[in-house]
């Protein structure tokens, strides 16, 4: 649960911008880390002075989700340690890092899917449009409707394609003038309409893996989310299906804030605007903890990372 004494939420509508590069000082034997950028959120104006490579100057950076000192525990095990991040509106942010570094765990906090795991506990704050997602009066259903999710393995319901897409509006009890239009619109946006328009009543399980995943994206879009979380969405797909999903993600970024976890560095480089690099540290007791190394514009991460560990990972020296 959230820390009641946690930092106050930033003003809801302000455009909060940090360069994102925030390397924490900690007890690393190498002593390689230094505090680089101020911790406080800085205004857009002052930040653009320190514009990083890859900044898209036309669009103001508006943070939709911000985390502060986010730690995730499973029982007494601290899976992720003190992560500070923010995710820009209508941007694609990729979270990369070796397996077991807690990137999926962090992702699942944003729509509170971690609530489903017995013993999972969150410390620190996650704010979404300025509202603490883990505040006691927050309704997880509202959160999940606004923050949609696409999973690693396509998980269409064992129903028709139509019913898969219509499921979200139905369970949310929306009065819909024409469900057919909603389904068509969602499938069109997910670039699947042309392939399935003649077999809407057929089982979704008959689709190919890539189609299933796009159906899951369509299903997610149908509830009009604001943010779409993608947990290694292409991990089980072939390269052609993967490239279709990647194209789709670029298109969706016009309307949605997308956060993607991927183990595929090239994918992060291809699709994302910003990239967060995670790694797993082993503490003095020999326990692994996930940790954010740095977060910055994708171009900068891949060309000129601030942290040697990032560079090592990018260049394939480890992980």
């Amino acid at each position: 649960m959230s820390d009641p004494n946690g930092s106050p939420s930033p003003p809801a509508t302000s455009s909060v911008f940090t360069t994102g590069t925030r390397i924490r000082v900690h007890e690393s034997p190498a002593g390689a880390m230094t505090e680089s950028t101020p911790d406080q959120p800085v205004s857009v104006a002052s930040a653009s002075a320190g514009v990083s490579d890859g900044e898209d100057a036309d669009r103001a950076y508006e943070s939709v989700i911000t985390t502060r000192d986010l730690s995730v525990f499973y029982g007494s095990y601290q899976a992720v340690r003190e992560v500070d991040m923010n995710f820009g509106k209508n941007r694609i942010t990729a979270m990369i890092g070796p397996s077991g570094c807690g990137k999926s765990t962090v992702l699942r906090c944003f729509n509170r899917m971690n609530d489903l795991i017995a013993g999972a506990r969150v410390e620190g704050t996650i704010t979404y449009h300025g509202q603490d997602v883990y505040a006691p009066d927050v309704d997880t259903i509202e959160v999940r409707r606004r923050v949609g999710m696409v999973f690693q393995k396509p998980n269409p319901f064992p129903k028709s394609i139509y019913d898969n897409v219509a499921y979200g509006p139905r369970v949310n009890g929306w009065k819909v003038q024409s469900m057919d239009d909603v389904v068509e619109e969602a499938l069109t946006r997910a670039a699947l309409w042309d392939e399935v328009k003649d077999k809407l009543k057929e089982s979704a399980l008959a689709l190919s893996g890539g189609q299933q995943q796009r159906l899951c994206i369509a299903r997610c879009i149908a509830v009009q989310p604001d943010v779409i979380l993608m947990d290694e969405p292409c991990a089980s797909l072939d390269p052609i299906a993967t490239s279709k999903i990647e194209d789709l993600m670029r298109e969706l970024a016009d309307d949605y804030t997308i956060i993607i976890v991927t183990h595929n560095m090239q994918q992060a480089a291809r699709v994302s605007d910003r990239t967060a690099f995670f790694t797993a540290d082993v503490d003095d007791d020999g326990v692994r903890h996930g940790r954010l190394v740095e977060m910055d514009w994708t171009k900068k991460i891949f060309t000129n990372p601030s942290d040697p560990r990032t560079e090592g990972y990018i260049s394939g020296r480890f992980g």
Partner: protein
Amino acid sequence: MSAPPSTLVDKHAVAAGAEGFLRQQRARNGEKAVFVVLLLAALVSVATTVGIVISLFVPAFQFFDEVPITDFLFGANWSPTFANPQFGVWPLIVGTLLITVIASTVALPLGLGSAVYLSEYAKDRERRALKPALEVLAGIPTVIYGFFALTLVTPLLRWIIPGDGEVPQIYNALSAGLVMGIMIIPTIASLSEDAMSAVPSGLRQGAFALGSNRRQVSTRVVVPAALSGITAAFVLGISRAIGETMIVVMAAGLQPNTSWNPLEIHQTMTAFIAATAAGDIATGTVVYKTIFAVGALLFVMTFVMNMISIRLVRKYREVYE
């Protein structure tokens, strides 16, 4: 977010970032009501157990007000309906134990052997045919087993065992015990096989890699590793034998007997309960209460065995799953 689909109208929508926009927007009292209904359904089983305990033990304690519990447990004469009633439960225990021992002698080795065959030897196709056959064996109503024991197995026994005309009697413990043993084979086989399939295949492969043959792997690796599950199966099978009613009512007879001769008539605890209750005894009489005293004893015996079995099953699940 730009241009939301025009066809959707969400009347509960609150703009993102507005005060309290993540709070619950609609009442969902149904969720709580559902929870209460589900919990109540789950409590029916608890209520059943409570009901069983009350219905058994309240009259049983009333019975022990009238008949000292020591007479009941240690008396060697059972004749509750006689003019001078005796309430020593020992003859019923003899009948129950004798038949249970016969049934176990049949069912434990055969059930275990079947389980080893199914788990270690049978090919997939064989297993797909044999397991449903065992299910059918388990699904035969006990009243039909009783009929089978009385009208076919007993005459066969009387033909095979040349007595002096006295034994085997028409009703005898052996026939009931043998048929009951067959009835319990599937219970033991399927539970033991579950336990053996839970043994990790790495253990088997390790033994094969050391040059063991299939028999050695089965007897020296798989069976010992699955021992707690196999024990659970045995205990549960024996518990079923103790609690089985129709076979003993029909084939073993309704006359208490302290002899350990399996060729003679014997009455078990369950047979006494069934016969006495069916005999239209007036509520509240001592004879009526004996049903509950014997029932309580039966319940305690099977309860203890069931608990042991449940614990053993949990133990192997914890180790291997």
